[in-house]
C-alpha cells in the first residue's frame, strides 16, 4: 500500500489548486455566456460552446472527482458507459435531425 500512498500524495491537490480550478470554471462559464451574446460569433457558437463545456466537464471529473490521480480502473468503468451515452445522444440526433435533411 506504500507506493499507492506516495502516488496519491504526489497527485494530491491543495485547496489553492481547487480554488484555481474554480476560478477557471467561472471564467469559462463567463466566456460561454459572452459568446452567446456576440452576434458576430454566431457561426462558431455551437462548436465553441461544446469545446468549452467539455473542458469544464473534464476539469471537474479529473480534478474535483480526482480521476486523474486515481486508479485508471475508475476512469474505465465511468468513461466506458459514458462513451455509450454520448453515442446515444449523437445517434438519435443524427437519426432524427441530420438524416432527414439528406433524404435519409
Amino acid at each position, binding site marked *: 500500500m506504500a507506493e499507492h500512498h506516495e502516488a496519491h500524495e504526489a497527485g494530491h491537490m491543495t485547496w489553492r489548486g481547487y480554488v484555481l480550478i474554480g476560478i477557471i470554471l467561472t471564467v469559462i462559464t463567463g466566456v460561454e455566456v459572452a459568446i452567446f451574446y456576440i452576434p458576430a460569433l454566431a457561426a462558431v457558437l455551437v462548436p465553441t460552446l461544446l469545446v468549452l463545456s467539455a473542458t469544464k466537464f473534464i476539469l471537474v471529473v479529473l480534478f474535483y472527482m480526482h480521476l486523474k490521480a486515481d486508479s485508471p480502473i475508475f476512469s474505465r468503468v465511468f468513461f466506458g*458507459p459514458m462513451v455509450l451515452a454520448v453515442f446515444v445522444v449523437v445517434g438519435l440526433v443524427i*437519426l432524427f435531425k441530420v438524416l432527414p435533411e*439528406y433524404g*435519409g
Partner: protein
Amino acid sequence: MATLEAHAPHAAQPRGTRSIIWDYMTTVDHKKIGILYFLTSLFFLVVGGLEAILIRIQLMRPGNEFVSAEVYNQLFTMHGTTMVFLMGMPIAVAFFNYIVPLQIGARDVAFPRLNALSYWIFLFGGIFINASFLIGAAPNGGWFGYANLTSEQFSPGLNIDFWVLGLQALGAASIMGGVNFVTTIINLRAPGMRLMRMPLFTWMAFITSFLIITALPVFAVALFLVTFDRFWGTVFFQVSAGGDPVLWQHLFWMFGHPEVYILILPAFGIISEVIPTFSRKPLFGYAVMVYSAALIALIGWGAWAHHMFATGLGPIADAFFTVSTMIIAIPTGVKIFNWIATMWGGKIRFTTAMLFAVGAVALFTVGGVSGVMHATSPHDLQQTDTYFVVAHFHYVLIGGTVMGVFAGIFYWFPKVTGRFMNETLGKWFFWLYFVGMNLTFFPMHFAGLLGMPRRIFTYAPELNLATINFVTSLGAFLQVPAVLLLVYNLWISVRRGAPAGTNPWNAATLEWATASPPAEHNFNTTPVVHSREPLWVEPAQVEEAARGPMEHIHLPPPSYWPILTAAGVVATMALFMTNLWWAPLIGLAWTMIGAINWAFEPTH
C-alpha cells in the same frame, strides 16, 4: 481438516419452518439469494409457459374462439414480458449469484444487502405485474409496448399502468444487480486470479452486467416518458403536439437489442463451462472467446434499429444497421467453432448437461441463420411482423438461452445440493423437450414465409395455415410433460438423489473445490490461483485452501431492511395506480425509512 463448529455462525441443526423462512427473508448470502432467484424464475417459467399453451390452444384451429381477442392480447403480452423479465434475466442472475463468487474465490458479492434488495424487488414486482390478471387488466400492448398504442387515449385502462410501473421497478433492481456484479468481479477476485484467468462463465457474467448497467437506464427513461404521458399529460408521444411514436421504438430497442445479448451471454457462459468439462479438454481459444463476447456486446449496442426496418428510417440508416447486425454474426460464429473445436479430440461424456449444451449450440445456430436473414433489410421487409421472426427468436432464446440454462441446472445441481439429478429422467426430459421445441418452432418459419402475421388472435381458413399451426400447437403441448419432468426431477433429486462429492464431474474451476453444498463462507481460506483450470493444474493446493484449516472469517450479518425497502419500492408503484396525489408519497417515505435505517445499520 478443521471442523466448522469453532467459527461457524450457524451450526448445523434441524430448524423449524418459521426459522427457515426468516432465514431466507433476511439472508444476504449470495447462495441463498441465488436459490431464491432460481425458484422464483422457475415459477415464472411455468406461468409464461401456461400463457404460451393458452395461446397455442387458441391458434390450433382457424377461427377458434377459445379466448377473445382482448384476452389473447394480454396472453401474448404477458408471455413475452414474463419470459424476458421474470424468467430469462432473473434465472441468469440466479446463476451469477450462486456461481460467480465461488468461481472467483470470494465469500460473497460486493454488496450483499443490495443483492437481497434486487431479489425482493424482483419478486414483489413480478407479483405486482401479475396481480393485474386478478382484475382482468393484464398488460396488453405487447412486451415491447409500442407508443402510441400505450397512450392513455388508446389504452385507457390499468393494463399499461401495471406494465410501465412494474417494469420500472424491475429495471431498477436489474441495474443494482449489474453494479453489484461488475464491482464483485473487478474487486473480489482471489489472489492470482487475473481477469484472463477467470472462468468463462464469470467473464460472461461480467460482460452481461456491463450490458445491464448501460441498457436498462435507457429503458428506464423510455418507461418514464410513457408514464409521464399517461399520468401527468406530457406529450412525448402525442402526435398532435409533434410527438413521434418512432422515438419510443428507438429508445425501446436501444435497450431491447442489448437485452437479447443480456439473455444469451449467460447461456454462452454456461455452455463454455459444460462443454470443456464433459470433453475433458480446456476450452478452445479462451482469449478469443472473451474478446468475441466483448465485441458482441459492443457491436450489439449499435444494431438496435434492425427491429425498425419497416418504419421508414431511410436508406443510409437501413444500410448502417444491416451492416452492424451482420457483423455480429462473426464473433458469434467464432464461438460456435470454438465450442466444436473444444469437443474435437476430447473424451466426451453425454450427460444430460452435455446434451443440453450441445443441443443449445446446434439450435442457437439455427436461430442465428434466420437472424442473418433478418439482418438484410430488404429481406426483413418481408419477414418482419411475421411468424418467421417468432421462429427466429424462439430458436435463439429457447434453443440458446433456455437449453443453456437447463444444461447449467444439471451441471451445478450437485454442487448446490450435494446430490445428482436423475440422469434417466434427465435424458427423457432432454429428448421430449428437444422434439417438442423443434416441432413447435420449425414450422413457424414456413408459416411466416407464407404470410402469417404476428400478434393475431386468429386467422382465416383460406390462408392454408391450419396444418402448420396445428403441428406447432402439438409441439408446444409436448413441452409440457417435458418441463413437468424437470420439476419432478428437481423435487425428487433434492430429497433422494445419489450423493455427489465435491467435484463429481472432475471439472476445473474453483467452485468445485468447495464442499457440496458449500459452507456459508464458501472457502475456509481464500485460495491462490496460478492457472485457468485450478482443479486440473493445482488441485491439492486449491482444495487445501477451500476445505483445510480456516482463516478468520467475517461474514456480513443478515438484515431485514432489504426486504422492507423492496416492499416500499413496489408499494410506491402500486400506490401510483390509486391516482391520489399523496398516495405514492407514503410509499416513498416507507422506502426512504428503509434505506436510511439500512445505511446506519451496523454490519459487524
